């Protein structure tokens, strides 16, 4: 039983982490066609925000609570800055945004190295997350459950934003048909910025969860960005449900493969599985049908 529950539960937690990281990506990719390679660095920004919060709010039980909104704002602000400074000039060349954001990602990584040091800093786990629960012989850490709760919370919040608010309606309108949305008076410029802010902010929240599991690290972003992108690719564009299923699938499959072989073999096999999956469904799990030829 242990051989089954361990990878399943640990994989679900990894999947939750991937989900938080991929939600923002799927949002910006689906709406604007922008591929933000610096998204991983927003995750890193969230992790460092957690670390800094602990320096200010020394009560670790409390600091995580403070860190969550702080990380959201810091990463969101970074995303907004990126959109205003660079991305907004490039909406006509979506593939090129990929390369520009690669440059941004390199800059941010080196900046983190210079400011915080190459070694990374530890983040203390608050007392109420320090512990585990015994599930069929696997000592499931509270931290992993926290990650899952965080992902579900983020998903619910994003879902509420998209379905219940007027901004959400404008976002959905822009995703479905940008020109028509503009015609009926939606300022797609503003909508793009809001989406970028929210998507990047979500990465910051993910960074809080990452920092609890592995501390901070200047290269933290690169660890997650590729898996998060594979999730987006496998999940399909424009639909959050595909991202959700793909995130947990990738997380759990990778955990099982790691258990059976080793972590590097698991990475290679997960990649192969995604390529094979794209043979069956080239557009990902779910996709919005359009009549366009593209």
């Amino acid at each position: 039983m242990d051989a089954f529950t361990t990878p399943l539960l640990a994989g679900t937690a990894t999947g939750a982490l991937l989900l938080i990281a991929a939600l923002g990506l799927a949002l910006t990719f689906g709406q604007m066609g922008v591929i933000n390679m610096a998204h991983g660095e927003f995750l890193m920004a969230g992790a460092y925000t957690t670390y800094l919060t602990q320096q200010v709010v020394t009560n670790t039980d409390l600091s995580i609570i403070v860190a969550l909104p702080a990380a959201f704002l810091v990463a969101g602000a970074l995303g907004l800055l990126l959109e205003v400074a660079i991305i907004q000039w490039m909406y006509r060349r979506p593939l090129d945004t990929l390369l520009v954001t690669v440059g941004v990602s390199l800059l941010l990584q080196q900046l983190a190295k210079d400011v915080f040091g190459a070694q990374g800093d530890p983040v203390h786990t608050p007392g109420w997350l320090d512990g585990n629960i015994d599930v069929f012989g696997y000592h499931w850490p509270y931290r992993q459950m926290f990650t899952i709760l965080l992902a579900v919370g983020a998903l619910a919040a994003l879902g509420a934003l998209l379905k219940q608010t007027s901004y959400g309606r404008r976002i959905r309108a822009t995703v479905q048909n940008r020109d028509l949305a503009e015609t009926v008076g939606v300022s797609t410029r503003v909508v793009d910025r809001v989406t970028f802010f929210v998507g990047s902010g979500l990465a910051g929240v993910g960074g809080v969860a990452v920092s609890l599991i592995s501390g901070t690290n200047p290269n933290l972003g690169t660890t997650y960005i590729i898996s998060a992108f594979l999730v987006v690719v496998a999940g399909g564009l424009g639909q959050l449900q595909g991202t959700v299923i793909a995130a947990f699938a990738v997380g759990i499959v990778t955990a099982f493969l790691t258990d059976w072989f080793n972590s590097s073999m698991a990475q290679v096999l997960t990649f192969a599985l995604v390529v094979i999956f794209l043979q069956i469904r080239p557009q990902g799990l779910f996709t919005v049908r359009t009549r366009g030829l593209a």
Partner: protein
Amino acid sequence: MKNLLQTGQRWGRTWGPLLGIVVVAIALLVVAPAVLSPFRLNNLGKYVCWAIAGVGIGLAWGRGGMLVMGQGVFFGLGGYAMAMHLKLEAAMATGGPDAVPDFMVLYGDGTMPGWWEPFRSGTFTLFAVLVLPAIAATILGFAIFKRRVKGAYFAILTQALAVAFATLLVATIKQTGGFNGLNQFTQFFGYNLYDPVNKKMIYSIAAVLLVVCLVVVWQLYRSRFGELLVATRDAEERVRFLGHDPANIKLVAFVVAAVMASIGGAMFAPITGIVSPSDVDATASIFLIAGVALGGRSLLLGPALGALAVGFGRTFLSESFPDQWTYFLGLLFIVVILFFPSGLGSAWSQLSARLRPKETVR
């Protein structure tokens, strides 16, 4: 008179690129060996290897529209194939025909995996450098292009491949040397690697290979295939409606680019004396793209000259400001892609097109 001018223009369009290639060839093969110190010449050789891979990227990305973000993998296939042979050559020179590489004794039990065995033969190695990446690229490209996976999806898949490849190399220390990679070669097909004359010869081989790749790509650009490739980049569906299969067109460009990257990698091993995962991972792949973007992705000479420039800049900046190189690389991407999307090679025509009064359409 006008007729003569037109003939001249046509002649220039046809043979001008060749003139450019000849200038590059003279600069690399005659001027550089004469004026550069052996150390600098060896460095130039390293940039030439990147440039060879860059020429392939120019073909796939500039003309084919496929942003290949994992060329490090093919660079690595060639590099590791060559490095395995050099490693065995070094071992056999001291330990007899059955000797195994030193790191296998150090980290493993001194037995060599069976797939190393054929690399004792130099002929097989050269064959593998050309054929291994071709097979890998064909399988991957076929799977991706036939299902019409393209654009950002394609770019991300290739980068994921580079990440997976590097991870695999790091994890297999007993078979591939792991994080340290393969190094400490002593000879190159029988020639002593410590002899400066031989070093110069190896540099010249790399430079000749770069010129050959440029000629191949020049001919491809002139051919019907080149036209089709650009057509596929600009309007894939129209090409399909005209009765061509874009997947096959892209596949050819992707495979040629992979083989060129592999050739670059194969020369990289004897020139630098080391091939390690950090030479072939995602970051290295992105670095290869930087040169192509700088020089001009869809030009003939742009990718090669850009790669040489970025290689030189990397050495220069690493020597002067060791930690600042990454900032420059990051800024390079942002500035070049934002302001000169078609590279510095096209900067002049881009500027003059902007300054010229707009033609009115009647």
